[in-house]
């Protein structure tokens, strides 16, 4: 399978908008839907509980969204999500609605976005018409830190995000905002943060989500490397040391590997099978761009969410001059050392070819 050129990828992006209860998802959605660029967007609202209160707040025309009223999308209506997307596509193609430009799935506050991603990844037919646009997670600056500390589900929503949207910033001081941003940097160092004021999203949030998986991996790996370096460069006056927020992170961490030598694909997939089988539950998100021995000029792009992996996509060329394999892990309770050791043991990767930014920086 070859990945379409992102600029010419005509597939409809599906963005998952998540965030804990009361973190401002619906406000954000209401404002987003007013933007001209959102014309042709469909919103799938997934309510928690029997009464769909949230949708009453969304000022959108009837045909623009489909409301799922039967509970949590993550556990009970996965099949319905697929059916709903197919129905939206059919209507759009048949001219019954305006042409579909994008889909936003707003999850219940408690939802784990992973099963929604699984649903999309597992439906090959669906993925010919739609692509995963990304996960946007709202975090409100008033309750965010406390919520993240108390609820591992909230921490997971943050960790697996492609973009964090900080809300209710007009209610607190700049210092409080800074503290939260700092906290989020530690929990999710790979994720870009955007600030919403009065629910207004200043930059075009959805358009800026990474459509190009390869440069996304490269960018995240770079961020993680920089974050690692930053931590280790911390002087004696540093107040945001490595373990500072450890207790509030629910074992969630992010790390990356850079591998200099080309990777033997058969051994690497064996290792992937093992990871999925034994650590799948705790592998919150895995992204990689891989230089393989059999075709080193055409990298493979990988994307996994827990035990589910997207079929690897072969790119026609490297997105930049950096042709090293980069692996990005967002995990819960998995040590970096475990990944390093098993890569060497089962993926036939030479220990000397694994760069360890942490050690290099120390």
């Amino acid at each position, binding site marked *: 399978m070859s990945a379409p050129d992102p600029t010419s990828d005509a597939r409809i992006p599906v963005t998952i908008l998540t965030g804990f209860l009361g973190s401002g998802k619906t406000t954000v959605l209401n404002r987003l839907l007013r933007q001209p660029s959102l014309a042709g967007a469909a919103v799938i609202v997934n309510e928690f509980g029997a009464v769909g209160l949230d949708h009453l707040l969304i000022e959108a025309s009837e045909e623009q969204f489909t409301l799922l009223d039967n509970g949590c999308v993550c556990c009970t209506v996965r099949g319905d999500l697929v059916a709903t997307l197919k129905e939206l596509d059919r209507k759009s193609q048949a001219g019954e609605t305006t042409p579909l430009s994008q889909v936003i799935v707003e999850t219940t506050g408690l939802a784990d976005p992973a099963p929604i991603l699984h649903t999309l990844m597992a439906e090959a037919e669906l993925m010919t018409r739609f692509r995963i646009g990304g996960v946007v997670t709202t975090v409100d600056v008033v309750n965010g830190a406390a919520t993240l500390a108390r609820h591992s589900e909230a921490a997971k929503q943050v960790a697996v995000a492609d973009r964090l949207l900080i809300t209710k910033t007009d209610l607190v001081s700049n210092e409080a905002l800074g503290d939260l941003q700092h906290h989020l940097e530690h929990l999710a160092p790979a994720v870009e943060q955007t600030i919403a004021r009065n629910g207004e999203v200043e930059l075009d949030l959805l358009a800026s989500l990474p459509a190009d998986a390869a440069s996304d991996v490269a960018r995240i790996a770079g961020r993680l490397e920089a974050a690692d370096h930053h931590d280790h460069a911390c002087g004696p006056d540093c107040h945001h040391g490595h373990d500072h927020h450890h207790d509030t992170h629910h074992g969630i961490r992010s790390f990356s590997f850079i591998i200099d030598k080309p990777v033997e694909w058969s051994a690497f997939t064996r290792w992937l099978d*093992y*990871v999925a*089988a*034994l*650590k799948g539950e705790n592998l919150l998100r895995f992204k990689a761009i891989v230089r393989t021995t059999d075709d080193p000029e055409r990298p493979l792009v990988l994307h996994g969410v827990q035990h589910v992996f997207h079929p690897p996509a072969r790119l026609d060329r490297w997105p930049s001059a950096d042709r090293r394999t980069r692996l990005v892990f967002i995990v819960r309770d998995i040590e970096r050392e*475990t990944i390093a*050791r*098993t890569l060497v*043991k*089962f993926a036939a990767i030479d220990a000397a070819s694994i760069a360890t930014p942490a050690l290099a920086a120390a």
Partner: protein
Amino acid sequence: MPDRSADLVFTNGRIYTLDRKRPWASAVAVKGGRIVAVGEAADVAALTGAVTRVVDLKGAMMMPGIVDVHAHLMMGGQAELFELRFPPTASFETLIARVGEAAAKSPEGSWIIGGQWGSDLLPKLNRLEALAALDRVSQGRPVMLRDDTYHNRWVNSQVLVLAGLSASSPDPEKGSIGRDPATGALTGMMIESAAGIVERTIAQSGHYTEEMDRAAMARSIATLNSYGVTAFLDAAAMQPILAALKGLDDRGELTAWSVSAMPAVEPSFMFGIAGDELIALREQYRGVHAKPDFVKIFLDGVPGARTAAFHEPYTKDPVLGCCFRGSTIVTVPELIRWVGKCEKLGLGVKIHCAGDAAVSQALDAIDVVRSFNGPTKLKHHIAHASYIAPDDVARFAELGVVADLSPFLWYPTSFLEGHKQTMGEARALRFWPNRDLLAAGALLAGGSDWPVMPNPDPWDGIEGLVTRRNPSGEFPGAALWPEQAIDVATALEIFTINSARAIGLADTVGSIEIGKSADLIVLDRNVLETPAEDLADTKVLTTWFEGRVVYERA
């Protein structure tokens, strides 16, 4: 001040504790089913009150109860209590006559289940004339008779009706239904997997009630107790077994510690739910002495049937050709998933591996799991750690895998003769490298695999571990790989404290130490001073379970 008096005190014993810190004692005190003192007369004197029962051992040897790491309990008890028994040497006429007697005594409509006919009778039974003879004597009762391999069944026409079978029924995968060559009419012979069809019919008929299951289990455990066994692992515990153990435990009638291994897949010889469905029910079957803490996975078959998986090929065979090596039933990635899942659930895995390639694959899978999961307190077993590639011997200790030594085939047997035919003599004799495993630091645990062994007598096994010669006197002068013999003290550890560690009960059983269960056996001799060739003659005089007598030799 609370009464410190013990309930029970043993004195004047030659008490071998299996506690390396204190190997010998002469007195033991018990209170509330637990050992409260181990030492000499003076150590128990203060605990001996007016109500304390004092047992003078008069110099007899006492040791902790035996722990059998691999047994199949229900079948033996069912056969003894509820089934028609005849020896494999019984003639066709005898067999028919015995069914006739049983039918005359049993109520109308009730099942007659029996065994085992010699498999050499199979061609004779697999005929319409034989079926007609069986039907004549069964008086309309459904009859099912098992053969001596436990793989095949012969049933009467009534059972064929109950099972919904007719001449148009297709053969199941990996089995066949006997048919008359001329007419295609069914003969009642159910070969290999076809046996499952009629076994399931019986299971679904409600023939075996929970009361019968408990009685059968209790009978089997009483047999274990008579040989000094006070803890065991049931190596293929289906739902009726789990229910019987829990039922006995709830009634205070379970006279041994039981650990159960729930099959990941329905075994070929037992029927009902297995795998995730069965595992999900485990907590409802947990009791004080009933612990469903293992999962059983069959990775291959047996060498004699050329179904075990080996690195080197079997001898040439007209059907399988020159180069057949056997095969594994479960792939390494599947095994990895199973072991990983079981570790998440806090369950050990017992993996049946009869060939050296199966052993290698099981070790490979556990190596992967260890690499990702790090150390664990759970114990995984390789059963039966018998044919092992030399490079794999050290991996048992490295990976913390238990070598399940069962059944008692550590000396020349008819099984070994079968292996010589399928593997060639030189390879067949590289069987049970026990001493090598021990030297490499592996945890060796003893088991009977009863009823694969006709009885679960550990003393037969212990002699075999020490002499590598057949204790019964069969195969005189022959020894199996005698360099692999081990000493009797080590053999005793293997059948007590080692097996206790292997089944996760080392804090409770396996040695005579303060705080452990008062599971104690009194022997008719000091087995540490008995000539090796007499060890199998050892008799258990009394078996105590939690300080209660559960067996006394008449």
